């Protein structure tokens, strides 16, 4: 019907997009986010609110299955697009527009009587028994009961966090056993990066370690953009939505090549507003405290370590950074890590003012946005992933999200087989060779 086609064209002129991020897709994800922001297409919080599923990176391990489940949960009219690598900004926008067209086509065709109703199991209790006299309803058994931390007997729910979740590291999945809203047991599962996909955020430092000469200004701008990206995700969960958008805008301006001197005032203002916000301080201070001892034992370096008070930054001993004072916070809580990112981004942009300084190729380790990076050791994000189980067990739902977002491991840099093999609660799901 022409009227239906016209009305649906108006109704879906800005489709809601669900981003399914896979490891190795950071570059694409940044282009997609920028396009969505410019066009005003809202980012959906869950499949129920989405029209278009956008997959960035390459699904590996169990990720493909999880993405299929998310796809099944999208209500009609829906469409699905893959943004593969390599793809430039224009190609990505063309792909998104093609997805939009598919949504419009389906919206115009679907007759109201044939509305697809998706049945989605989102609450599974205990272990699945086949016994009929265990009180089954529709094939689902009753939830098991177990003692919680206060000794009360509460229902046990198994509901995972991720991998298709807004403001969440790509390809990460926490299999959580909930009692009430407290995570009693957490198992971390990471999907490995598929072969050949780049680690976007670590790129300049990897090139430096592999023998290239890179400009300090370019390196520090990249670091500032990485911190602003992490900050955007954390602010999407905690802080004022206005500041989350502001951080995303600053990040996009840096990645688009704008001079550091022009972006620096914005970032400085952002850091100031975050520090002065008393309500933000009330909500996030004292949450997810990680002491320097804990972090050092786990081998964590970088902003997470500096936020707990340890003055550890490889740039201090680096001749390419003559006068370098590391940014350090206290307390090591979520607020400290938030402010650490903001302050380090501002400091990096100050360092990036000097266009002439050069970082010669080096052997050993360099300070990357997530921590100490070297070619013969595991990536710093692996240490962060190892921390997740311990830092989130026993925390309640909001705290789990905030702790993960404040550590923000970069799953692009987690290659096959380097996750701690002795910890049963951390797993690399499948191998990149067999999906």
């Amino acid at each position, binding site marked *: 019907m022409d009227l239906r086609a016209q*009305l*649906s064209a*108006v*109704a*879906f*002129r*800005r489709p809601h997009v669900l981003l399914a991020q896979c490891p190795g897709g950071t570059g694409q994800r940044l282009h997609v986010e920028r396009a969505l*922001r*410019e066009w*005003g297409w809202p980012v959906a*919080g*869950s499949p*129920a*609110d989405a*029209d278009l599923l956008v997959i960035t990176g390459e699904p590996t391990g169990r990720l493909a299955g999880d993405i299929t489940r998310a796809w099944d*949960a999208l*209500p*009609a*009219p829906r469409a699905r697009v893959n943004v593969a690598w390599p793809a430039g900004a224009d190609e990505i926008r063309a792909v998104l527009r093609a997805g939009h067209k598919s949504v419009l086509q389906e*919206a115009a065709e679907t007759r109201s009587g044939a*509305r*697809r*109703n*998706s*049945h*989605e*199991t*989102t*609450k599974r209790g205990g272990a699945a028994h086949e016994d009929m006299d265990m009180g089954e*309803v*529709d094939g*689902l058994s009753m939830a098991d009961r177990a003692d919680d931390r206060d000794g009360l007997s509460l229902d046990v*729910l198994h*509901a995972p966090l991720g991998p298709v*979740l*807004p*403001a969440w590291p790509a390809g990460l999945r926490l299999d959580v056993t*909930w009692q*009430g*809203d407290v995570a009693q047991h957490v198992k971390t599962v990471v999907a490995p990066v598929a072969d050949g996909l780049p680690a976007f955020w670590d790129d300049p430092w990897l090139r430096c370690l592999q023998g290239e000469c890179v400009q300090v200004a370019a390196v520090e701008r990249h670091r500032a953009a990485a911190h602003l990206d992490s900050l955007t995700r954390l602010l*999407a*969960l*905690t*802080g*004022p*939505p*206005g500041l989350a*958008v*502001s951080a995303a*805008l600053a990040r996009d301006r840096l990645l688009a090549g704008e001079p550091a001197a022009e972006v620096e005032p914005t970032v400085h203002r952002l850091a100031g507003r975050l520090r002065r*916000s008393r*309500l*933000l301080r*009330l*909500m996030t201070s004292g949450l997810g405290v990680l002491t320097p001892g804990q972090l050092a034992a786990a081998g964590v370096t970088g902003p997470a370590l500096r936020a707990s008070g340890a003055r550890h930054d490889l740039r201090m001993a680096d001749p390419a950074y003559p006068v370098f004072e590391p940014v350090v916070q206290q307390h090591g809580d979520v607020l400290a890590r938030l402010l650490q990112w903001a302050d380090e981004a501002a400091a990096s942009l100050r360092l990036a003012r000097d266009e002439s300084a050069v970082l010669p190729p080096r052997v050993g380790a360099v300070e990357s946005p997530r921590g100490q990076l070297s070619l013969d050791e595991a990536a710093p994000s692996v240490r962060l992933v190892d921390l997740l189980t311990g830092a989130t067990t026993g925390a*309640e*739902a*909001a705290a789990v*999200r*905030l702790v993960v977002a404040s550590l923000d491991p970069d799953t692009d840099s987690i290659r096959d087989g380097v996750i701690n093999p002795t910890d049963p609660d951390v797993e690399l799901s499948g191998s990149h060779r067999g999906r």
Partner: protein
Amino acid sequence: MVGNGPSWSLLVLLAALAVLAVAASALDRALADQAAGRTVSRAVVLDPLVAGLRLLFVARRSTRTSDGLLWRLGAGTVLTVPVLAAVVVPLGGRAVADLSIGVVWYTALVALLWVGVFLVGWGGNSAYALVAGYRFVAQALAYEMPLALSVITAATAAHSLRVGALVQAQQHLWFVVWMPAAFVVYLIGALALSFWGPFATPVAPDLAGGVLVDVSGVDRLLVRAGQYVALVSAAAFAVPVFLGGDLGPVLPPWLWSLLKTVAVLAVLVTARSRLPLVRMDRFEELAWVVLIPLVLVQLLVVCIVILATPLA
């Protein structure tokens, strides 16, 4: 002065609530557009209607072993309760029903929102929706007492629970001038009862949309529209209770009511982008230990003033 309106006043109320809810949503979108660096066109006024149209096209989801009746009922409750609560709000001197217990009517009805939001969270048989439903209950426990006490403070000053009498009692001085703490607490309660802005944890992105995680189509439209109508209803109720109703110098009374409502609504809507999310594990204690004593002290001051000044 203020009394019952003619029989068609209910239609006027519905129309006013609808227009103001759309305006609130349009304002929020315009602010978001501006913050994101997009150009704000005049078509943003129609965006809420387009969003509603989209939700009418989207398929309605169901989940396994959900409590269908209570789930859908919860969504419907979130929309109808604020409309019912607003019948005591006068526009230009006339309310749909100027009940002798108008203040209690309003407070009691917005408490029914607890039922609506919790049922939306519980009915879908979904873990995150349930957690978010309980978040709203915790939030309700935090805001309800301060909100009720702030409204009681105004009613005490007017010696009546009838909204019309509250407006009449503000002829010489608006209540907001000499009970500002109560007004601020009322605004906090207004944000919390419509789970808007800093108090949006029941629908927050950290639980993938909270109570709305599995809700789509018409049900989502009902809850979202109900959220905006609750905001409008709370803003509209603040006007006769604290801001002198339709009293004002030059313009016609109904225009004054409208302008004041729009002003309060604008304050409530802009609070979303400027304030961080408030979690109840940190705020609950604050609400009971700081806000309630604050309002009680305000109530004490009001009582002393009333006893000290002779009745007009």
